[in-house]
């Protein structure tokens, strides 16, 4: 039985909205287990979101339209990104409209507006957070693009669906040096972009160290809920992007019902593993000094470039 690709697209977006908070909850849960604490329920992120949605929005008097517009834009962009990445099947309605370079720029738009909104109110923290976020972004983006190019060379296309299809049919793709380097670079960049521990601490509100939290400090109510939800989606999106590019086995290449069901099972297994790996990284490492981030992301750029070069040199 074949499912129409519009239905798959809808399922994928619904899955994105539901699975992103679950994934964040899972990461938190495993982290608590690792550190010997009692874990909150897997549904805790949903409860947090519901609480925020039911609260009133408190706006600063001098907040402009940018400040009010940003949460909706960030949320919308995340949903759109989720519609492009092949999660269950490579046959998606929107996959032809946007390739992986557009995906990178979608994340860039969201970040650009968040940085503007951080400066909009005019508090010191917002400006500091925006400045730091843009510093990190300017270092992470070249590396991200290079990593993406290295994978595109192997996948023979910049369209995500094509890349996933070629790589999953390619057999022992993980033995290819370019993929190994690109994966290393991608992990480092994903940690920086999603604000995880060696670069930023998602749980902190300490003035000196926060980066992402400083930008969104002025948000409240449903605005904050949308931004937090988008943040969870970003973590989920980077995870499924990594899965689609490096471990695509299980993602269905046609729209058969059994294949899609299998893809769903594989997805949850992979998400579970990635969550545990993330927790291992986060508990094993300490947060870096902010000026060490240049070296961290510089090495990500180095890995990505080596990946691209080893495609030409060694393959």
């Amino acid at each position, binding site marked *: 039985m074949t499912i129409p690709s519009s239905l798959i697209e809808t399922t994928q977006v619904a899955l994105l909205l539901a699975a992103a908070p679950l994934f964040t909850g899972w990461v938190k849960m495993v982290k608590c287990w690792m550190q010997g604490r009692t874990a909150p329920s897997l549904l805790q992120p949903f409860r947090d979101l519901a609480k925020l949605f039911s609260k009133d929005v408190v706006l600063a008097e001098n907040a402009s339209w940018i400040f009010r517009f940003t949460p909706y834009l960030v949320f919308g962009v995340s949903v759109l990104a989720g519609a492009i990445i092949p999660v269950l099947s490579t046959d998606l309605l929107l996959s032809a409209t946007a390739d992986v370079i557009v995906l990178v720029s979608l994340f860039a738009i969201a970040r650009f507006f968040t940085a503007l909104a951080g400066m909009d109110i005019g508090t010191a923290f917002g400006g500091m957070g925006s400045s730091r976020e843009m510093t990190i972004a300017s270092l992470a983006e070249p590396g991200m693009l290079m990593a993406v190019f290295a994978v595109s060379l192997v996948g023979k296309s910049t369209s995500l669906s094509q890349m996933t299809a070629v790589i999953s049919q390619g057999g022992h793709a993980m033995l290819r*040096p370019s993929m190994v380097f690109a994966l290393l670079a991608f992990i480092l960049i994903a940690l920086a972009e999603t604000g995880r521990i060696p670069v930023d601490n998602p749980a902190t509100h300490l003035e000196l160290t926060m980066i992402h939290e400083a930008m969104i400090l002025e948000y409240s109510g449903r605005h904050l809920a949308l931004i937090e939800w988008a943040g969870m989606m970003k973590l989920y999106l980077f995870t499924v992007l990594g899965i689609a590019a490096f471990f695509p086995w299980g993602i269905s290449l046609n729209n058969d019902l059994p294949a899609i069901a299998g893809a769903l099972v594989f997805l949850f297994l992979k998400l579970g593993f990635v969550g545990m790996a993330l927790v291992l990284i986060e508990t094993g490492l300490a947060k870096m000094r902010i000026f060490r981030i240049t070296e961290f992301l510089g090495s990500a750029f*180095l890995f990505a*470039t080596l990946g691209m070069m080893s495609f030409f040199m060694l393959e």
Partner: protein
Amino acid sequence: MNPTAAAQLNSLLAALILLTAFALVVQRRMNALLHIFAWQGFLLAVSTAIVGFVGGAHHLYISSFLTLGIKVILLPYILHLLIHKLKIRKEVDSVINVPTTMMIGIILVIYSYHLTAPIRELSTLVTRSTIAVALATFMLGFLMMITRKHAVAQIIGFLAMENGLLFAATSATYGMPLVVELGVALDLLIAAFIFGMFFFHISTTFDSLDVDQMARLKEED
């Protein structure tokens, strides 16, 4: 193991050797430098054994064992004893900062790829694609000798250069004649002992292994 799979495995090893070469250039801590150097030697030994197996050049097994014995176990051990005795713990400082060094390293890799293009065209061996990596490893060792101020780090750079040479010989011609390789291995051992003596002299004279201190040796004018 069929030749294509072996060639692919060898490519992966070459990529990892290149990675360790970069890690040597950017790593600050002395102990970590020694570990990475030992890993590079280990990867080189495995790669040599694979090339020996694929090319049917059985003297490469001996070369592989020599690499394993000298560069993975003996030299790191000697250097470890040395830095332990001289109580070197502080981080190594370099002339250029780390991101710039990485960029220079990337340029060197592209340059070596360009430089080895004619050899790659002429060669018929399965390992011909790794010649560029071998030259890059050599150049990165050279870069390390230039950018580091610390004598022990410079020696590790020198040994990494030697690794690059051995790798180049293996991938370009299935290795040098056994006599030459034995000679090189002996040379390395002697060199390590001489370095050790030098280190002791430098550190007792200047109370530091920073080679910038040697500028004090010049005459007053």
